[in-house]
């Protein structure tokens, strides 16, 4: 009795640790990874939508996974969902391992597959559907192992494998492995069910993959998106196998065994954490998500911390700077990957991750046709081909275009969601005047002809300062000084009382290169300090004779440095 109470206390302590640690981790360390998982999926409460899950294997896993994913939209919701999912998985893993005779250390041993899961949960492409798949497979094993020696039930278990593939997808392999080990462990005289189930599980995806129109790799992994995501299941099956082979593990908790397990687990946990925490991606996703949530203050705070060298980070920082009217002054204060930090390219060589965010700048600048195009591609290219964030964007674009019929299609879709329906209602109430104004001048241009699009926006609305800044900065980042000068003189020079620092630096380069007259020079009303600095820079640059370091040390965030030393990469 006292031992049972100790076991219970021990289990509760482990469970509490697991829930608390995972909750805090996903609340404080990786919250934006979870927000993003929700943004690249969409869960609609309609019958037809539910039916669509049957098109591929693992229907129940995917359905449940997407159902859970919708809660990741809430601040703190992701941490709750993930920690509860881990708890369920841990409870099931504990039960499974106990069937293999694991002893009192089972609560600690059952943490190992969960830690592996934890490790992968922080990857963008990992979905809760994979976790649900493992839980379903484990529950099926518990049901199977409860059948005793009745051959009819065992046959039913064997036949259940194909059904489990339809419901849980690749989780079926966990069931097959567990049954295989279990039959060896428990029923030494009757091994055929184990072998049969392994055979069926191995062959079944290949047999049905053409009906599901999947490649062999996809058929064996669905709903996971990579081989690595099979690791938690393999770890669980491996633990069962090890427990079976090493019956000494059944011993009771002693100080020595406890210490050993705790040390081993701590090492696994720390190593996992070190590899799990991806601060760079988290920072990028934070910028992208807070920009999506419309929290400009948070975006500003994130940009002030310094950004990782990634086009998406530069992209959102540029948008934030433009919103604050500081783009022309601070363009060179942070990482710039050329013009692809202003517009994320959409072409066959671009990753889906970059395509997904590409509509934001077009919407911000008022280029609605491109915003719609990018949003459609962003959604279709996202892993599940349906995205709540992109549906919202498509609704916004069509409202801005005045196409209420098209907008309603998306708004009605959002009406059928749990957490976006209020947003849809708000959008219907928003008056047209509060939305970006569509352009009135028509022309055609290729998707990647950004200067043409920006010129139309500037001509269409002379108050569109953001489009003008983007046009000037586009030329600057491409080191196209003549085009910058031409655009500046045409759209900016007469109106501006103040020349932003980066524009001033570029103008000085242009004037110096063109050996401008004094009259021409004076027409720009430069800050005298800037002109003095340019003189100092020129002298230092000539003295340095092509060496970067001395120039960078003295003029670290200047366009002059970018102009002379940044190398343009071929797209």
């Amino acid at each position, binding site marked *: 009795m006292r031992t049972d109470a100790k076991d219970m206390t021990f289990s509760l302590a482990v469970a509490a640790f697991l829930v608390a640690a995972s909750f805090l981790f996903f609340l404080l360390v990786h919250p934006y990874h979870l927000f993003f998982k929700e943004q690249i999926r969409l869960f609609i409460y309609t019958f037809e939508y539910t039916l669509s899950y049957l098109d591929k294997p693992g229907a129940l896993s995917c359905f449940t996974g997407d159902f859970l994913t919708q809660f990741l939209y809430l601040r703190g919701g992701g941490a709750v969902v993930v920690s509860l999912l881990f708890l369920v998985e841990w409870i099931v893993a504990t039960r499974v391992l106990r069937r293999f005779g694991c002893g009192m250390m089972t609560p600690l041993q059952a943490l190992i597959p969960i830690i592996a899961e934890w490790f992968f949960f922080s990857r963008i492409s990992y979905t809760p559907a994979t976790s649900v798949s493992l839980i379903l497979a484990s529950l099926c094993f518990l049901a199977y192992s409860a059948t005793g020696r009745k051959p009819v039930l065992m046959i039913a278990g064997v036949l259940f494998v194909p059904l489990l593939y339809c419901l849980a997808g690749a989780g079926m392999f966990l069931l097959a492995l567990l049954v295989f080990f279990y039959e060896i462990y428990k029923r030494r005289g009757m091994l055929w069910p184990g072998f049969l189930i392994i055979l069926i599980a191995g062959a079944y995806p290949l047999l049905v993959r053409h*009906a599901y129109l999947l490649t062999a790799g996809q058929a064996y992994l669905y709903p996971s998106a990579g081989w690595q995501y099979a690791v938690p299941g393999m770890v669980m099956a491996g633990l069962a196998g090890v427990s079976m082979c090493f019956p000494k593990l059944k011993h009771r908790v002693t100080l020595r065994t406890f210490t050993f397990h705790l040390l081993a687990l701590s090492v696994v946990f720390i190593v996992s954490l070190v590899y799990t925490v991806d601060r760079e991606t988290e920072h990028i996703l934070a910028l992208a998500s807070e920009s999506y949530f419309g929290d400009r203050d948070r975006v500003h705070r994130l940009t002030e911390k310094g950004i990782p060298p990634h086009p998406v980070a530069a992209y959102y920082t540029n948008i934030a700077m433009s919103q604050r009217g500081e783009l022309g002054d601070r363009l060179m204060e942070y990482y710039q990957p050329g013009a692809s930090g202003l517009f994320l390219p959409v072409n066959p060589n671009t990753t889906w991750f970059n395509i997904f965010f590409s509509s934001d700048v077009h919407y911000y600048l008022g280029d609605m046709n491109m915003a*719609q195009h990018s949003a459609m591609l962003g959604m279709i290219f996202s892993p599940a*081909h349906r995205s709540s964030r992109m549906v919202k964007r498509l609704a916004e674009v069509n409202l801005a275009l005045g196409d209420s019929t098209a907008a309603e299609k998306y708004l009605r879709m959002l009406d059928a969601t749990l957490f976006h329906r209020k947003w849809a209602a708000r959008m219907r109430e928003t008056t047209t005047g509060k939305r970006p104004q569509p*352009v009135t001048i028509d022309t055609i241009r290729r998707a990647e002809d950004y200067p043409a699009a920006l010129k139309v926006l500037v001509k269409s609305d002379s108050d569109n300062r953001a489009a003008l800044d983007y046009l000037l900065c586009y030329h600057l980042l491409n080191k196209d000084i003549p085009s910058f000068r031409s655009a500046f003189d045409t759209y900016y020079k007469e109106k501006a009382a103040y020349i932003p620092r980066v524009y001033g630096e570029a103008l000085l380069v242009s004037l110096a290169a063109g050996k401008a007259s004094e009259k021409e020079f004076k027409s720009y009303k430069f800050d005298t300090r800037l002109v003095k600095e340019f003189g100092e820079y020129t002298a230092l640059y000539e003295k340095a004779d092509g060496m970067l370091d001395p120039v960078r040390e003295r003029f670290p965030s200047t366009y002059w440095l970018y102009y002379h030393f940044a190398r343009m990469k071929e797209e």
Partner: protein
Amino acid sequence: MKNIRINILALGITLLHGLFLFSSCREIPVNVHEVGESPAIYPDYTEVTIPSSIAPLNFTYATETERMDVMFRGSEGGEISIQGKEAVIPPGKWKKLLDENRGGRLEVTVAVKQNGRWTRYLPFRIYVSEYPIDYGLAYRLVAPGYEIYSRMGIYERNLSDFTQRAILENTFIPGSCVNCHSFRETDTESLSLHVRGQHGGTVLKVGGETNILDLKTPETAGRGVYPYWHPSGKYIAYSQNDTRQVFHASNDKRVEVFDFSSDVTVYDVANNRMLTPPSLSTNGFETFPVFSPDGESLYFCLADFHRLPAEYAKVRYNLCRIAFDAETGRFGEKVDTLIRASEMEKSISFPRPSYDGRYIMYTLSDYGNFSIWHKEADLWLLDLQTGKNRLLDEVNSADTESYHSWSSNNRWFVFSSRRDDGLYTRLYLASIDEEGNVSKPFMLPQQTPGRYDPSFYSYNIPEFISAPVKLDVRKIEKQLLSGERTKAN
């Protein structure tokens, strides 16, 4: 396999639905307010003509309702009464009612409960045609922004029920794009299907044999767009289009697609050779080739050369014809112009002759050949017997009508339209009788007709099919991935 699964599922849904209807008490409408107008149902099935084998025309009310009470009464007998939030018709009863009323009509009475109050509308009619319709439709489902591709596929839909089956999806061959499927009339045993991408090729199925073709020759780019079979099955006409997509800046137009160059070629199936007559590879733009039903002519669209993209709005296509001898594979010397649309400052796309040779249906827009993005695009019908050329007012809408095709008996046609939301094309079917009278079109029946349409895909290139498409997907995958191609000469 998938068919079985879907059928089991459909059965389950019907049972569940029946159970729901049974369990939810039927309410007898009381204090009904009668109004003298037709009900605003979605999809709009009022006064439409349908084939007797069509799937149930489930519908909903255009605005939120608490309950609908719907009564279908056949002119030749039989009735169905249903009640619920939507009008979901039991398939068995529907089939029986249509069988009983072939050549007759159904009178449909709709009462709607909103804010606790019942309103009954004027009854409307659904006419049940005596003309049969083919087994189903094959179409592509693709997101509207098609420039680069992620997920798309070719699907078939049984018109008697709601079963949709994937014939081929591009995720099956990662990095590919499946497009431009064509059958010999509606015969699924003769199929041409182009796959683009790293493992691309033109899939040709003739009878039980499947082959992957490389149509690239020194004279042709091998693109194999807009295929159309010769009625003998010996030839397939293709156009070779170098297509580009650009975007409008203003909000009333969105996308513009045009061909930098385009020629028409014909593939000789038996001799594995490409025919490239000079009269179909001129300096102008030739596209949309289709053979006449007697096989003695090739219709196509032709526009004068213009500098692109600057003069995109000046490119206007006329409907032309050139003689073709199927025995020798030779073309006539002279190109005739059937409709000079450019003189009306209009442009023709997708000419499709009926299989009895009486009509050519085509799309007319202001310019260019990618009518799907032109709101003004409408369907027109040229009667080759009388020479009468008319706008199909009966089926056109304020939005785009574009791709269309004929049923094997020429009494039905299907077309794509953007009338529902202006963005995603849906399929509509209409009937045409011996005198050329065209009925009001009806939307391809939907199992769940609700207002929450969760699809992000447009229906594209709909074609009637007489039977399910039997494609050996295993073999096609193996052939595509192996890189082995039958190179056309």
